[in-house]
């Protein structure tokens, strides 16, 4: 058991990412163990979303490699990584607007989850129940408000049956009560065996979940460790107070 929780799920080494002249990641090493919950913070423009995009293969890194479950996946397309259990949500939600909420989630169960027929229906229904979206199942996704669109991002990622879930600011704009519900959902998922990486600006919410905290600034990881020590790290305080490039 100890061995299983220690297992290295994701391991990224020396990631660099440039968009033309703009250097967004400069030498990021980032790893996640099975069943670990990692919080990621950092000022606007620090490169958090870009890191996530490189991890899932939406952007190719300029240099560096990504290993998932021991295999080099740096050249593997996003869809294949998802089928292997690496799922992400989008900071700006990207619903399939012409489809219903259920169809959005079912598509994820079919393709990312590799399920068919009743098993796919069950997996999709479970993802909707987990995220509290069952009552919206037949709504066209284009009619959803921002909060529900974010919940749909989570539901869709869950329906792919991931072992590592990468969340990008799904808590923004929530009331305290809604944020508490979200925290409960995430803790439930962790109990279910998922490893979770959660990028979030609302630090006090994040701290209720994260066992480990990573702080990024200007394309680098400037602190990585126990949440309390990261939050009191002078470099982290400086990055927040001094402000990043964003």
């Amino acid at each position, binding site marked *: 058991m100890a061995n299983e929780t220690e297992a290295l799920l994701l391991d990224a080494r020396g990631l660099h990412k440039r968009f033309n002249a703009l250097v967004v990641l400069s030498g990021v090493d980032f790893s996640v163990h099975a069943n670990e919950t990692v919080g990621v913070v950092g000022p606007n423009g620090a490169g958090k979303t870009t890191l996530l995009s490189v991890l899932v293969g939406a952007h190719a890194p300029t240099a560096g490699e990504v290993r998932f479950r021991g295999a080099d996946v740096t050249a593997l397309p996003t869809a294949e990584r998802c089928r292997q259990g690496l799922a992400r949500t989008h900071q700006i939600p990207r619903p399939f*607007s012409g489809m219903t909420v259920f169809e959005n989630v079912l598509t994820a169960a079919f393709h990312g989850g590799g399920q068919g027929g009743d098993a796919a229906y069950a997996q999709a229904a479970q993802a909707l129940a987990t995220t509290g979206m069952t009552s919206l199942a037949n709504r066209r996704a284009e009619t959803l408000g921002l909060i529900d669109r974010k919940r749909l991002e989570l539901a869709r990622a869950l329906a792919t049956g991931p072992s590592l879930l990468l969340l990008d600011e799904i808590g923004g704009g929530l009331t305290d009560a809604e944020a508490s519900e979200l925290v409960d959902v995430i803790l439930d998922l962790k109990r279910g065996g998922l490893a979770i990486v959660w990028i979030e600006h609302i630090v006090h919410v994040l701290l209720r979940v994260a066992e480990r905290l990573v702080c990024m600034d200007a394309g680098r990881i400037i602190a990585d460790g126990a949440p309390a020590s990261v939050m009191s790290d002078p470099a982290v305080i400086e990055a927040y107070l001094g402000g990043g490039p964003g």
Partner: protein
Amino acid sequence: MKAPAIRIERWTPESRVALALALIVAALLAVGPLLFDANIVDRLTTLFIYVILAVMWNALVGYCGLVSIGQQAFFGLGAYFAVRLADLGFSVYPSLFVAALIVGALSLPLSTIMLRLKGGEFAIGMWVVAELAHLLVNLDTLINGETGTSLIALNAYAIGKRRALTYWCAFAAMAGLLAVVFVLLRGPTGAAIQAIRDNEQAAESIGVRVTRAKRLVFMLSATGAALAGSLWVATAVTFQPRTYFSPQWTAYMIFMALVGGLGTFEGAILGAVVFFLIEAWFGGAGVWYLVGLGAAALVFALALPRGIWGWVEDKTALRLLPVGYRVKLIGEPDVDKGA
């Protein structure tokens, strides 16, 4: 949280009735040449070809989001290969179908190039492909350049028999393609292509193999448009490249799908019927007919952006040939339908 007991509804009572009616109509149409007079048989043949064009455009654009203004490439090539094969001595009616399969096969290598292009580049690129295909076909001396040629092999058949055979080929092609598209849309691939239409990157990030799905739809719509072209040459007999590689065919497809309801299965069929009726009533009005078509398309785009059937779907829960999924909570009434 445990998932509540749900049931997934795909066929509703109304849609079962609709399917039964559709099958009865299909059975009647299948023996059309035995029932109807020559004029009606000819007109129905034309309608079947329009349905094929509308359904193929709808699959490509309405469901997969791949806007192309060059589908006349496949229409023209389908007609060309039918003429070519017949000239080589192959039996003319099987050649109509073989021609479409050849075009379908050619669309595979074409797809590897064209599907790299996105949005407007793809749309315009397809128009360039159509122009190129037109030029290449003109290189075949059989065609006599823009003068064109005829499907003379058809002269071997008495006029009545020819009319009936062409009708049956068009009917079989339409029925077969409708069935293929319907089954495809109802399955996981149908979900994938709609996801691609709505957000390609999100589709990728939930595990959809985007290029594979797009290629399938691209090839299907190429094959279907080619079949429409080969059937058209069987009704028209003459093959003039300029007529067949004309953008007007794609314009017709756009009109039918937009008016009927882009991205709805029933809408494309309805749009073909509407177009067919408009043409039957106003087709003789020359240039004013074309002006009227354009104006009608504009009015529809503004007033009913989701077309006639899209409007019906928004206003009612009616689904005649459903490709989607509706969730019913067991033991509770209906889950919120939303607006």
